[in-house]
């Protein structure tokens, strides 16, 4: 049995750890709220843009934009991986890593190109001896629209140049603070939504300058938004996962402290009893 002093020291150290995890929990819950607000604030923008895209492609079904056209054979696939910069977020990053492995296995090395955002997935790729084409970091929990633009422009460029034949995004969808799921979604070529505007009179829209030019201008922005949404979802998921992980760490530390305190009291009590017995037996011996 460890001595009372040792147990006491242990209790102090666990208390310190608990304070840290508690602070991290509070910080991430505040930031989670902000990240969630931002993810919600983008919803109307996305909705309007999808609406416009639908009306545009309805108006000019034959305006074949290169971003809609699938390449004949898929030789090389580009994966945009969105993870976090910091750890201590429960299974957040290992889920992203699992998704990376699931898409990369059974494929020759040169059949995929990787674009990575976030320091943690980068480290994992290093561990797999894979070199990403380009990496970004430093904004995983507070992405800006300009970050999304950089990523989207690069991916679009690679697709248009024929360097890659498909582009997928691996990100974490935020369902709630307690549950997030990692998703692999296709970004390019853009897949048109089926069954648009059935029945009812279709309104005639005017276009300025003309449908094709508007579509050409709209698509890059749609892709920027697509990435921006994924970044925001991942940011909210990261903070949610961290909050959950830190909550349970704080609870566990509390339990540990309780257990240690009981042991400490027992040891102290045993010591006192021991001393008493010695005093009493000593006094008895003198009589």
């Amino acid at each position: 049995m460890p001595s009372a002093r040792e147990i006491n020291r242990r209790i102090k150290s666990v208390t310190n750890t608990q304070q840290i995890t508690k602070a991290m929990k509070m910080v991430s819950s505040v930031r989670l709220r902000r990240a969630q607000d931002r993810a919600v604030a983008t919803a109307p923008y996305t909705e309007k843009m999808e609406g416009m895209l639908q009306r545009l492609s309805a108006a000019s079904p034959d305006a074949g934009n290169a971003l809609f056209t699938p390449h004949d054979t898929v030789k090389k696939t580009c994966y945009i991986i969105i993870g976090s910069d910091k750890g201590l977020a429960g299974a957040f990053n290992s889920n992203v890593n699992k998704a990376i492995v699931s898409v990369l296995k059974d494929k020759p090395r040169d059949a995929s190109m990787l674009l990575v955002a976030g320091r943690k997935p980068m480290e994992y790729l290093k561990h797999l001896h894979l070199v990403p084409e380009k990496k970004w970091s430093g904004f995983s929990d507070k992405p800006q629209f300009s970050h999304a633009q950089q990523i989207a422009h690069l991916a679009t460029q690679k697709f248009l140049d024929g360097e890659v034949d498909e582009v997928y995004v691996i990100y974490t969808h935020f369902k709630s603070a307690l549950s997030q799921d990692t998703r692999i979604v296709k970004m390019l070529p853009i897949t048109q939504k089926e069954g648009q505007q059935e029945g009812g009179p279709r309104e005639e829209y005017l276009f300025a300058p003309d449908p094709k030019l508007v579509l050409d201008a709209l698509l890059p922005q749609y892709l920027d938004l697509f990435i921006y949404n994924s970044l925001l979802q991942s940011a909210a998921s990261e903070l949610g996962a961290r909050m959950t992980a830190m909550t349970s760490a704080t609870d566990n530390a509390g339990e540990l402290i309780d257990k240690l305190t009981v042991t400490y009291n027992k040891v102290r009590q045993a010591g006192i009893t021991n001393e008493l017995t010695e005093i009493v037996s000593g006094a008895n011996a003198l009589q």
Partner: protein
Amino acid sequence: MAEAGKTLHLEVITPDAAVLHEDVDFVLVRALDGDLGIMPNHAPLIASLSIWPLCYDKGGKRQCVTVASGFLEVHDNTVTVITPASEKPEDIDVARAQSAEKRAEDRLVAHAADLDVTRAEAALQRALRRLDVAEKYGKQ
């Protein structure tokens, strides 16, 4: 809601927030092929915008916000503008716009071999339009 056919409902939306939500009498924007004026009861329209301030009349007073390209949709007396960036005159960071203007000008003057001219020009245009709007409409 406004009386039908008398006013337009103008919404300016960026990825991060809704900048404007107002009932107005007239909207003036610059599309890729020229200025577009929109009055109530306009036919449904989708237009691609250039980097130019969006002006609107409300109660006989003209006001402007910056719009850094984007799209405009008119439908059922509602004008929706979606754009990556838009600011009201009072929200413009003049110092930042000035430094952005200087940066873009320097880049265009220096004309390095790998210069993305379109991008530098767009940056310059955004900065200049922000300064215009801040100067003309900021002090009200």
